[in-house]
């Protein structure tokens, strides 16, 4: 029989091999699935993974990839701190929404003033909004031991109701002829988050995502806080012995992930989306969970995984419009990616021992 035995050291090879193998397995099983749906698997896979990057219209798709990847990376970097420390913030989607609302609200309160100070102020407000929304499950966990997974997840639905009511009420554009939705923030110079270089898709959110990657990399590898984050996740008792206050660690991780998710929401509402609408959120906060794990909770890995997931979004749209692939099939593909990664990941810490097994 086949048994798994723990490796004395985590395998260096498998740490790098696992994500690649997971992508390959996803393509194979996804291909089988597409074939079962009656599509040519090779053209679907190529539409998703090849065309956005190197196809005929890649000049249009490449910037789109960055636009999608930026919020994913920004949110996933924040989540990775918590996930490494064993703090499970599943509600980044809600923090993303609330960040967008608070940021937009601050901007709209000052409309129509013309000053460059408004955008930075909105950035701060967005981060604070996400932070505050993340603090709710954090404080409930620390004070009452409430499960942060459930509370943060349920707060997503609260945030979704909140953004709908904002789009219909408080933040509705007075010039919108009664239609739901706020003023368009991307068309007001003081609040706009424009493309910084024409045709590249790079906006302030992309810049913030890159800064977050570098910041996270340095924090996790060189700073005592990052060390304590890793220690808490691996051995909570050892962390306490080393002097880590578990409650503060929960609050710090919820705060960081909430603030970064809020930032992502703010950059979205001032840029690509432009306004607060009823269905403002599109699931970045949930997909970012996949990005964080696919990137092995490592900042550089998250950078690559964010681009890969953005690719499946864009490629999925191509496959939907050109080949008539159902939208759910693309979500399935993203889910498969995480599934296979977690499965293959076992090999990092375990190795198969085939045959000999002794009754101990």
């Amino acid at each position, binding site marked *: 029989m086949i048994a798994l035995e723990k490796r*004395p*050291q*985590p395998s260096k090879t498998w740490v790098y091999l696992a994500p690649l193998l997971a992508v390959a397995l996803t393509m194979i099983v996804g291909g089988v699935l597409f074939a079962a749906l009656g599509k040519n698997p090779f053209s679907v896979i190529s539409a998703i993974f090849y065309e956005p990057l190197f196809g005929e219209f890649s000049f249009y798709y490449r910037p789109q990839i960055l636009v999608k990847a930026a919020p994913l990376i920004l949110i996933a970097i924040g989540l990775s701190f918590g996930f490494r420390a064993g703090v499970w913030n599943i509600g980044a989607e809600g923090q993303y929404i609330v960040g967008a609302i608070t940021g937009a609200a601050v901007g709209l309160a000052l409309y129509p003033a013309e000053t460059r100070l408004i955008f930075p102020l909105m950035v701060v407000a967005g981060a604070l909004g996400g932070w505050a929304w993340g603090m709710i499950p954090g404080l409930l966990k620390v004070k009452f031991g409430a499960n942060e997974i459930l509370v943060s997840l349920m707060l997503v639905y609260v945030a979704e109701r909140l953004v709908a009511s904002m789009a219909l009420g408080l933040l509705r554009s007075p010039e919108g002829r009664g239609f739901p939705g706020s003023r368009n923030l991307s068309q007001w110079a003081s609040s706009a988050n424009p493309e910084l270089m024409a045709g590249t898709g790079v906006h302030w959110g992309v810049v913030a995502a890159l800064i977050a990657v570098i910041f996270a990399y340095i924090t996790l590898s*060189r*700073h*005592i*806080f990052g*060390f304590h984050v*890793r*220690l808490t996740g*691996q*051995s909570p*008792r*050892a*962390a*306490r*012995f*080393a*002097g880590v*206050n578990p409650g503060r660690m929960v609050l710090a991780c919820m705060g960081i992930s909430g603030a970064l998710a809020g930032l992502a929401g703010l950059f979205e509402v001032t840029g690509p989306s432009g306004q607060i609408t009823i269905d403002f959120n599109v699931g970045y906060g949930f997909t970012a969970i996949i990005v964080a794990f696919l990137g092995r909770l490592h900042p550089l890995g998250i950078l690559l995984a964010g681009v890969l997931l953005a690719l499946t979004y864009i490629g999925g749209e191509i496959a939907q419009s050109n080949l008539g692939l159902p939208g759910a099939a693309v979500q399935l593909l993203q889910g498969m990616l995480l599934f296979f990664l977690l499965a293959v990941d076992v090999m990092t810490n375990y190795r198969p021992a085939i045959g*000999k097994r*002794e*009754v*101990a």
Partner: protein
Amino acid sequence: MTDALLTLRGLTKAYPGVVANKDVSFSIRSGEVHALLGENGAGKSTLVKTIYGLVKPDSGSMTLRGEAFAPSEPREARAKGVAMVFQHFSLFDALTVAENIALGMEDPPKQREVAARVKAVSAQYGLPLDPWRVVGELSAGERQRVEIVRCLLQDPKLLIMDEPTSVLTPQEVGILFETLRKLSAEGTAILYISHKLEEIRTICEAATILRLGQVVGTCDPRETSARAMAEMMVGQVLHVPERAAKPAGDVVLDITGLSAPAPHRFGTALEDITVSVRTGEVLGIGGVAGNGQDELVAALSGEIRVKPGMVALKGRDIGHSPANARRALGLLAAPEERMGHAAAPDMTLTENAVMTAATRENLTSRGFLDWGRARAFASRVIADFDVRTPGPDNAARSLSGGNLQKFVIGREVLQKPDVFVVNQPTWGVDASAAAAIRQALLDLAASGAAVVCISQDLDELMEVSDRFCALNAGRLSDPRPAQGLTVEEIGLMLGGAHDLEVAHVDA
């Protein structure tokens, strides 16, 4: 030998990468109390598991009462009269003694009948036990009696006992030994596994010593010194810790009325602990595990914060200080559990060095870690404490228990603490590593630090302590000079002896 009960001939058992038993032969006579001696990893467990039918030998044979004996499972071994009391009990806390015993029977009779038989056996062998009590309320010693009575109900010819005294107070050990002597007088052979040499000298008539899976010697423990047996076990001349006589210094750690609620459901509350420790002395704290040892270490290390005024270090109140503030002031600790508490198993030794040494060894500047310095410090611990590992980049979990313990102790000792609190410093550590660790504690005290050594191993405490006190149910007895304390006095201090009447048995 004509009256041999069990004879082993050339038993060999190999696991991938290690030969657990190699050509092991010896025999046990009826009524003999036979010691099986050896360090951790010497192959004692594999050998008794072979006898009990849990492990199949690669080669070799056994005979029991003249007949070939090759049990394929424990049930078969039990049917032929071999019983075993494991080191770790397999009892259900929520069930009564009688229910637990009935569960282990092939064909259990009614509860009342089981209870009656339990009563009869426990009276016969002087093992006081109430069959209707819930196991969860019993002490470790009483739980062991449940296991023993369970075995005795099978009327065994050979009783195997794996480290039976590790959880007992001296009084309970006395009760156990009376029982074993009675069993032996009735003709039951006992295979007694232990590394406590004085006990073996008290109770056993013959000893087989294993080292690296092989029999390296036999002796009559009644006529062999503990030191000689230890040296056979280890295969080298054993280094006995040296203590330099020193004058008592100033009080450096002052604990006054320390009380703390139990940190979790299975914890023990600390109640009104008052003791002070002087520079240059080792305070030994004895007691059976689970009497507040973990909590006391946590309250001193800063994992549990207590009320101001309860703990003072060099005259400064640190009762409410967090762990790293205490470290900065010179109070270091090493908890009992190595994996996951004193060390993070999946992290490298360098990272594990950072865990507690960041403050005192200046491994950070403005919060940023200096990995070069950390690695150098870890290398120094590895070199100074003879930690067997390829290097500081290896994960802690790749180290053996003894090596990791040396690393954990070394990590704290090299930070030059003023007060060092250590819990079970040599638990599960082989004899030579244990000797090295004890020597390190004595050297640390000689260099002027105060050492608080918490241990279940009374021999160890007598070896290192200047003063001794006992922890029982979260309370600490008054310390007394360790020199000249008798086993009886220690037992009374431990106070945890349950049912102190030592087996009144009609012989």
